[in-house]
């Protein structure tokens, strides 16, 4: 949990129990459409992070992208605000429209 108690809405499959990043379709593990939203603490751990010199259309270099693991092993890609984190760093994640953004948190 971040200092101010922010949460992130993630998905839970009622059929197989998988927890995952919201999709516009079915459960990525079993294909069920019985999906429930749940609130997760918005603090995650960086698994890998890179700085793209030629990001996808609509973004400018340098574009920092991190693969972040949230509680219950749910993963997401987040655009990093601030310096490039390294694997193991804690980040606070928030959703902004279609994308997620991460900023480095003070390490415990």
């Amino acid at each position: 949990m971040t200092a101010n108690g922010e949460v992130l809405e993630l998905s839970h499959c009622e059929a197989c129990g998988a927890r995952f990043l919201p999709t516009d379709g079915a459960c990525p593990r079993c294909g069920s459409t019985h999906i429930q939203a749940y609130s997760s603490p918005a603090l995650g751990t960086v698994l890998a992070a890179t700085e793209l010199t030629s990001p996808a259309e609509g973004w400018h270099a340098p574009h920092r992208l991190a693969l972040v693991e949230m509680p219950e092993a749910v993963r997401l890609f987040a655009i990093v605000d601030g310096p490039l984190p390294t694997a193991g760093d804690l980040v606070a994640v928030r959703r902004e429209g279609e994308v997620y953004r991460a900023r480095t948190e003070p390490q415990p």
Partner: protein
Amino acid sequence: MSVHVASVGMGRYGKRPEGLIDLASEAATAALEGVGRRPIDLLVAGSMLAHGTHGHEALLPRLAARLGLEAGSGLRVDSASGTGGMAFYAAVLAIESGRFERALVVAAEKMTDRTTAANTKDLAASLHPSEVAAGATMPGLAAIVTQRYLERFGRAASICDLATVHARSMAVRNPYAHFQKAVTPEEVARSRLVSNPLRLLHCSAISDGATALVLERGTGPATVLGLGQGFESIRLVDRDDLTTFAGTRIAAKRAYENAKVGPADIEVAEVHDAFSPFVYIHMEDLGLCEVGKGPDALEKGEIRPDGRIPVNPSGGVIGRGHPVAASGLAEVAEVALQLRGEAGAHAVARAPKVGLAHAMSGIASHNFVSILGRGS
């Protein structure tokens, strides 16, 4: 019913002045001449970027007209950078069905007349839209995969440099390869950073090129022994492990079972190293070396032409260049050339009897494994 590769046709890969249909017909003509222009009853062709951008929607009739083919039937396939692997698969199935006797398979791409931004955007079409929306590109996601691999197995980023050095040293022997000059580890490590840890020379090049095969009923030195395909989640965040590609492992298991051979029987392999460190992941997923030991196999010389299991004697995607749709067919073509004793300067040291070709779409979301050998 057996199917074999009766001939291989290639043009030089690289920056070419010709258009898509010219490149495709150059390779196709060579393949047709290889079988003495015996009649073709099926044309299978694929291109990833021809849609719209080159006005080549009618790829099959245009190609058939250029080649003067009387083929009454055609199939067009599209599986991003795995298109060539899929084209081969489709043609083999069509002949095995008994409906066709001889197929011309062509995969071609024209890329160097397009801007890098246009290529980057269109290549990202093989990724999940939500990940592209966050700015991800093929090299960006390949960089994340590479970081996970380096961390899990405690490897230094220099293993990526050595993979490029291997690919480029093989390409020098292949007259059809885009890159005809070897590189040193230092040159690779000094090349421009694209998405850390990946540098320019770790990433496959934008190339023009085409490959064609004629497949026939019957047996020969390059008979199809087994085929396999495998999917894996296109959204990378849904994968538990990014240091292995589950879709390749599934495709390999099916192909090995189908061919009734195992990894130890493979004497030459072509794998889809769109990014040079992927050569390690593919070798491991195909069972050609132990998990996490790909870099050791390279360092010990095991994948050189005179090694235990020669890998990418053509130069691979990194050395041969990457006209995306064509690469998957070039991988099968190289294995066929090696088995048929037609590989010339890039022939492996001990004439192989069984070989494997692997092709990958996107970040391994759809994978193809083809095993060829002498048919009984």
